[in-house]
């Protein structure tokens, strides 16, 4: 995962932890039904000024519906949405202080780039000189000077994406909504654009709400991510917390790669939880607080990069150790992922950074291996 470009402002940016901070967007108990189908089910959320907020989830989880309610294209069946203290109920899209960048970009095909960007400003009836100046500023911002007189069909995908962005921010909305903004770009361009979007958001001081199904995209850009499933929020957290402290198997599995080891709780006190597991054939010792009681079924969630793999047994093979046979090795370039069939049943993955050029692997297919991990490397989940 690429590192986030964190400036000095961003490092201390956590208004959601400050009880006195006033949210810019307030979503309260919002539901949306389409016939008998509930797309969004009683969700509440505060988004703060200058925040880069991501709604993340698989398709059909309700994230797009929620965004469309913010833009005014859908009306909530229940609940209320307000921006800067103003209740948005009954306010049509054209009067809302938000602009949206559409997944399909929705550029007007009969207008030039310049006219597309000027469209919202002309609707606002700004003076002509100001419109020209603003359009020029926008073109410069998205590095499309010289393309002003092209029509959308004469642009590449990446250029169209920039025009759509320029058009959406030209009106300087309080909130910019981005619906899968990078979905149509190829991987390389997507990564570049992620950082450009971040820079832009910081320099404009605008609040961005992005809808995406791409967890990398959300992790790279967002201050906070709301993981959605079946119309509800499963977890709302900053990226690192989401990755390291998922609240459920669903989140753990959705964000990145994870090993879920099932076990019974044998002991839980003083920040130490002991699980007995058939999969590892031994004890799992996990540090951390959890409400689990003895005899409960729980899962130890462990990221593959936090697992060590070795050919010789560790000092204490009865704790935090699993034995098995290397079934497959996935070479991804920067890391190699070892799929290990455990002697106790099930598989575990361990990803090892390829710090040297591989000439001959020390561990190969069919090798008998020991997987080990530290007590604080995973988390105990109950659902």
């Amino acid at each position, binding site marked *: 995962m690429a590192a986030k470009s964190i400036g000095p402002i961003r490092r201390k940016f956590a208004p959601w932890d400050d009880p006195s901070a006033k949210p810019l967007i307030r979503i309260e108990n919002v539901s949306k039904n389409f016939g008998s189908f509930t797309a969004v089910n009683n969700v509440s959320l505060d988004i703060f000024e200058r925040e880069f907020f991501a709604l993340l989830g698989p398709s059909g989880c309700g994230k797009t519906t929620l965004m469309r309610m913010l*833009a*005014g*294209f859908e009306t909530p069946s229940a609940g209320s949405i307000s921006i800067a203290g103003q209740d948005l109920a009954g306010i*049509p*899209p*054209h009067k809302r202080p*938000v*602009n*949206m960048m*559409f*997944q*399909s970009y*929705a*550029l*007007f*095909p*009969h207008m030039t780039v310049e006219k597309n960007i000027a*469209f*919202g400003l002309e*609707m*606002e009836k700004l003076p002509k000189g100001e419109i020209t100046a603003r359009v020029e500023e926008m073109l410069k911002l998205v590095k499309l000077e010289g393309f002003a007189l092209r029509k959308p*069909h004469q642009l590449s995908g990446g250029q169209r994406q920039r025009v759509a962005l320029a*058009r*959406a921010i030209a*009106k300087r909305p309080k909130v910019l909504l981005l619906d899968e903004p990078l979905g149509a770009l190829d991987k390389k361009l997507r990564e570049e654009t992620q950082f450009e979007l971040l820079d832009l958001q910081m320099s404009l001081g605008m609040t961005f709400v992005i809808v995406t199904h791409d967890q990398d995209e959300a992790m790279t850009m967002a201050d906070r991510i709301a993981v959605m499933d079946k119309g509800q929020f499963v977890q709302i957290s900053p990226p690192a917390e989401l990755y390291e402290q998922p609240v459920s198997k669903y989140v753990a599995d959705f964000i990145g790669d994870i090993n879920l080891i099932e076990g019974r709780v044998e002991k839980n006190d003083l920040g130490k939880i002991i699980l007995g597991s058939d999969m590892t054939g031994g004890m799992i010792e996990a540090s951390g607080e959890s409400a689990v009681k003895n005899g409960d079924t729980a899962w130890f969630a462990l990221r593959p990069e936090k697992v060590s793999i070795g050919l010789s047994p560790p000092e204490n093979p009865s704790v935090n150790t699993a034995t098995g046979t290397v079934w497959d090795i996935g070479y991804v370039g920067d890391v190699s992922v070892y799929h290990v069939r455990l002697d106790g049943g099930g598989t575990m993955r361990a990803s090892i950074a390829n710090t040297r050029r591989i000439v001959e692997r020390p561990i190969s297919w069919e090798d008998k291996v020991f997987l080990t991990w530290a007590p604080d490397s995973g988390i105990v989940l109950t659902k």
Partner: protein
Amino acid sequence: MTNTNHRWIVRAIPYLWTLVFFLIPFIIVFKISLSSPEIAQPPYSPTFDPFVDGWSETFARFAEFTSANYLRLFDDSIYVSSYLSSIWIAGSSTVMMLFIAYPLAYGMARAPKSWRPTLVMMVILPFWTSFLIRVYAWISILSEEGLLNSMLLSLGIIDEPLVILSTNAAVYIGILYSYLPFMVLPLYSALEKMDESLIEAAKDLGCTNIQAFWKVTFPLSLPGVIAGCFLVFIPAVGEFVIPDLLGGSDTVMIGKTMWEEFFNNRDWPAASAVAIALLIVLMIPIMIFQNNQAKQQEAGQ
């Protein structure tokens, strides 16, 4: 078609079609338009038959060709006024048609997806009955003792039957009814393929529904508007059946004038000259239409 040697056959078919059903008849009609009327069989001269008369005699007869029929088109005001009145009737019914068909097509394009095939079907349903029969049916609707008048009389809306049949109003009704699908279908196809998110984007950027329509929907439907207008205007100019059956003696349209020249006066050369002149008059809008279609295709690529 994988065999490249035989591809020309496929390509030749439309050209062959045009040659046989357009170019050859056109040349025959053009030739007659340069002839003089005769009381004979056929009713014009010169006629050519090199096998009876010999080649030199045949070529000598070329000198008998005359442009008198074309000059007459300008001399006799009936022709000029027929042309002008045809263009006026066709043009104004095209404009009226646009106002009727656009909301209809818009409604169809905005209807739930599952309804649309049914709605399209309903628009083209009248084609299942012969055009002639449908126009005849309007006689029984519009006549003094017709359906419309008896309904209005029985409802007490009018005291005396309205005179609609045999007026220009009946001609307009006939054209609007008969050509409606030709306007609705191109409009529908232009409106139906429009991306809904374009209209949402317009609203998002500050348009009311009406502004979004005029700034986005309408400009993007223009190709459909142009196609529909030409599909209605071009055949309506040369329309004969509708003015003949529904119009009165004061309805002059070029198709009717041509018919009268041909059957009543038995003046084939004059009728042919009228036909050729009509073709030339219509050539201009057809070429504009072709040009527009070509541009559309270019932009679509």
